[in-house]
């Protein structure tokens, strides 16, 4: 499938209609879904309607934005008016939102064509999309492996060219890690750059929506459409949104790139290390000055995160009580039984586990030892980043310590699943922008990702480094044979 810009030219030159582009995407989805299961729901009717509207605008001679007529997938924890939004959870299996998330509305306004809602770990809690209550998504590069998570459906769909771009959400790495596992570009913007209104809340101080794409340019075009201040999100940042495509220049002369020393330790797969080291050499060849940067408190990120995120989740998920929307068990004798059994049947094991951790960490007598301490460690991790960005423009490290693992490999041991977030979590704790770009393949043909991290609101630096690297390499041009 072509890039956004190529498709845009085909549409405005009337080489193809938006309806034809949408039909082609739907046909590909129908062919691949029996193997991949990226989508929880394919919205063919909505897609064709939206495509017809784009064609009408083309016929009327209207000027079209770049996203008009482009097939997109939306993670199923982002509200879409009139279209099921399940969070891959039984408790929301019948939930049809009466409103659009701000990002959904922005995509509609941009003329994008929604082809479906993508699979995820239940409530975005997981790193493999295996905790989805409904289906397992396969990695397009090896169907026995996971696509990563939690936005595994959005990543697999873009990697397999079921859609051009997609939206995911990233609380501890849920965009960047699946992008790495699926060999595509995935970006978590600065916290507050993209509105969270209508994103089903997991951990509100960490959640951020961002783009998946097969190129850095496509990611920039999608971010252009979704970024911006929103009064409906109290943590939304009131900042000017630049056109991110202006930062796509293939030159890194004078750029200072820091390599995070602590990410090259124990547990890092040797092939991942080799690929990332080669990528760093490539950045140097492009003119960047490379220096080692130590972030000594980085490694405490996982422990701090797995206190903070479940604590916030336990509060956020208290709303699923079987009263106002969602699932309710039928035969409860009284209100308390209705609550406890609705939640017991509605939530899967990982969600329950996190609610339990969070409830415990916030409970009387434990608050200081866990939640408060974790928030203080969060400050220390932020300080490590602040010191680093006093010296360099961007930081780089592997996105994940290994390539995609096999389905079932880590699902029996929750802690082993948590540890794969080692390199992405600190970025969320500090609210920074981070991107994963393809930087190689393992000997088994599995994609490897390079993480590029910028300072607060320095998406420009991240895009420039990512684009320069991408243009100098051809990893992003390879496609899986599904």
């Amino acid at each position, binding site marked *: 499938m072509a890039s956004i810009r190529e498709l845009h030219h085909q549409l405005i030159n009337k080489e193809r209609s938006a309806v034809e582009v949408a039909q082609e995407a739907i046909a590909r989805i129908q062919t691949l879904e029996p193997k991949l299961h990226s989508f929880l729901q394919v919205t063919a009717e909505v897609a064709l309607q939206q495509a017809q509207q784009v064609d009408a605008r083309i016929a009327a001679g209207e000027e079209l934005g770049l996203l008009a007529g482009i097939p997109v997938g939306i993670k199923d924890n982002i509200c879409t008016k009139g279209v099921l939004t399940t969070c891959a959870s039984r408790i929301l299996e019948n*939930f049809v939102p009466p409103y659009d998330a701000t990002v959904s509305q922005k995509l509609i306004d941009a003329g994008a064509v929604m082809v479906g809602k993508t699979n995820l770990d239940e409530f975005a809690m997981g790193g493999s999309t295996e905790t989805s209550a409904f289906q397992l998504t396969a990695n397009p590069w090896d169907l026995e492996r996971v696509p990563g998570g939690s936005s595994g459906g959005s990543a697999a769909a873009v990697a397999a060219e079921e859609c051009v771009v997609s939206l995911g959400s990233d609380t501890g790495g849920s965009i960047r890690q699946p992008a790495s596992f699926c060999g595509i570009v995935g970006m978590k913007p600065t916290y*507050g750059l993209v509105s969270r209104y209508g994103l089903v809340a997991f951990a509100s101080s960490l959640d951020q929506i961002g783009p998946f794409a097969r190129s850095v340019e496509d990611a920039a075009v999608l971010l252009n459409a979704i970024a911006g201040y929103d009064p409906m999100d109290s943590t939304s940042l009131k900042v000017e949104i630049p056109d991110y495509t202006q930062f796509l220049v293939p030159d890194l002369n004078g750029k200072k790139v820091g390599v995070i020393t602590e990410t090259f330790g124990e547990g890092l797969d040797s092939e991942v290390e080799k690929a990332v080291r080669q990528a760093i050499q490539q950045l140097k060849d492009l003119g960047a000055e490379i220096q080692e940067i130590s972030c000594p408190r980085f490694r405490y990120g996982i422990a701090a995160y797995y206190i903070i995120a479940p604590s916030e989740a336990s509060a956020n998920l208290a709303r699923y009580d079987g009263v106002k*929307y969602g699932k309710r068990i039928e035969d409860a004798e009284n*209100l308390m039984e209705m609550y406890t059994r609705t939640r017991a049947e509605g939530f899967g094991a990982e969600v329950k586990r996190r609610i339990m951790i969070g409830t415990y960490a916030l409970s009387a007598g434990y608050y200081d030892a866990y939640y408060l301490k974790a928030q203080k*460690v969060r400050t220390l991790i932020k300080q490590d980043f602040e010191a680093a960005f006093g010296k360099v423009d961007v930081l780089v490290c592997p996105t994940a310590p290994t390539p995609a693992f096999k389905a079932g490999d880590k699902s029996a041991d929750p802690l082993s699943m948590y540890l794969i977030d080692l390199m992405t979590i600190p970025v969320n704790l500090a609210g920074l922008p981070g991107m994963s770009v393809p930087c190689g393949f393992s000997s088994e043909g599995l994609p490897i990702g390079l993480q590029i991290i910028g300072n607060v609101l320095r998406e420009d630096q991240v895009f420039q480094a990512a684009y320069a690297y991408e243009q100098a390499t051809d990893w992003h041009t390879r496609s899986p044979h599904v």
Partner: protein
Amino acid sequence: MAIDREQVHKVAHLARLELTAAEEEQFTSQLSSILDYFEQLSELDVQDVQPTTRAIDVSNVTRADQLKPYPNREEILDSAPDRDGEFFKVPKIINTSE
């Protein structure tokens, strides 16, 4: 700091989750190893460190307290598992058999 089965039972009640005996047992061991993992945070001296409550600081966000009727009231009420006119209906709160 390990967690025992009784605490797991108590926490489940606080979280309004009914756990099966098997789940209680599994969570007791899984939560214990996760809590053990958290112990590494005590290696850091955080006594004089301010907690971070939000990733990026924004000053207090306020708006005028004005009534704005929601346009799709019916749709909201219809989303409820059980409704009675303009009310959400729930099972009885007090069990008469008790």
